[in-house]
């Protein structure tokens, strides 16, 4: 590793950390990808700015918490945040819309009460997923460039990466989602899987562990 690369601290999961890893992979710059499991977390927790992760640590040691603040910072640093302020806002709106569903999903994925979990997951599948499908269509129609396969404008942005990652997690962790929605979401996954900058990373990154 060169001098002091930036360091990304997160669990050895995708969950709320993968979006930043995808952005960094797309940007092509070196960084330290520190991953730990739940048993190791108590060692790292006191070193993290709010006792939470992910955390991005810059070369000078400054830490940034909050998964989306980190991802947005990295997206801007790597030219994946839109050509102007309005495009950046459109990207943010797509991501917030995806999060409306994802933020309901992730806590339930870790829910220990099996009865509650089953009930909530069924609601997500039957109520929230159809709304997500419709909302993503509407926003892409409004924000995508003419003849563009990307969510916002004419090139890949972190909106495409975020939707890609979040949908993959939903298809993996929401019972019934793969059967019902894999085909419908293909058009959101393809522009990312076919991007030359991501080829290496998508091939070499670890498979799903948990989520």
């Amino acid at each position, binding site marked *: 590793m060169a001098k002091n690369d930036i360091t990304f601290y997160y669990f050895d999961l995708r969950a709320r950390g993968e979006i930043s890893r995808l952005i960094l992979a797309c940007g092509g710059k070196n960084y330290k990808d520190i991953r730990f499991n739940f048993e190791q977390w108590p060692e790292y927790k006191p070193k993290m700015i709010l006792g939470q992760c992910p955390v991005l640590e810059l070369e000078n040691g400054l830490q940034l918490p909050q998964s989306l603040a980190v991802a947005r910072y990295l997206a801007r640093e790597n030219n994946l945040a839109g050509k102007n302020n309005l495009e950046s806002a459109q990207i943010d*709106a797509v991501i917030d819309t995806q999060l409306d569903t994802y933020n309901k999903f992730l806590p339930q994925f870790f829910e220990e009460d099996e009865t509650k979990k089953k009930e909530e997951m069924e609601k997500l599948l039957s109520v929230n997923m159809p709304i997500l499908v419709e*909302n993503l269509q509407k926003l892409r129609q409004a924000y995508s460039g003419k003849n563009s396969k990307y969510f916002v404008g004419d090139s890949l942005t972190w909106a495409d990466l975020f939707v890609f990652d979040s949908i993959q997690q939903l298809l993996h962790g929401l019972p019934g989602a793969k059967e019902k929605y894999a085909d419908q979401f293909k058009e959101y996954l393809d522009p990312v899987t076919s991007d030359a900058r991501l080829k290496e990373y998508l091939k070499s990154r670890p498979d799903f562990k948990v989520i």
Partner: protein
Amino acid sequence: MSNYKLYYFAGRGRAEVSRLIFAAAGQQYEDIRYEHSDWPAHKQEMPLGQMPVLEFNKTKIPQSLSIARFLAKQFNLAGKDNLEQAKVDAVVDTIADLMRKLSPLMFDKDEARKQQAIKTFQEEELPKHLQNLEKLAELYGQNGAFFVGGSLTWADLLFYEMNSHLLKIDPNVLQKYARLTKNRQEVEKQPKVSDYLKSRPETPF
């Protein structure tokens, strides 16, 4: 004719942070407020059938925090460079974490259960969020009263708005938090913000 149109209900809610940003910036805009009875007629006009929505140069943007961040960047209230903007976003997300825990409790129609849930929230959830905000202010605030970088950003305005809800539950909520108390006082003193706070309509929410 203004370039900016903000659509919301006749209340503060999720639009108020954007109204505070417009006020702090001294920027004119159309402040469109729909009564609940009028809303169904306009729902189809909004990208996701929800509000708030910002219309800027004929483009409509949904999602309250995305709107606020856009406006803050338009008016130089989002942080001076990418790193400052990231610090501001981190503060905003920490405030949003708190709001996400509190909001659902406020809508419980069972009054006794609601009061119990709020009490539990105050004892078990709230302290760690306020401590986190104090910590970020300490690390990012350059010893000034504002959260990031020594000048007003939308993080301060969002905290101000969020805190007004907390004060209704407990007027002494910021007692133990010196930085957060000073922050609130400083925001209230900003001339354009102060004028707006005095003149804005009184609404039930």
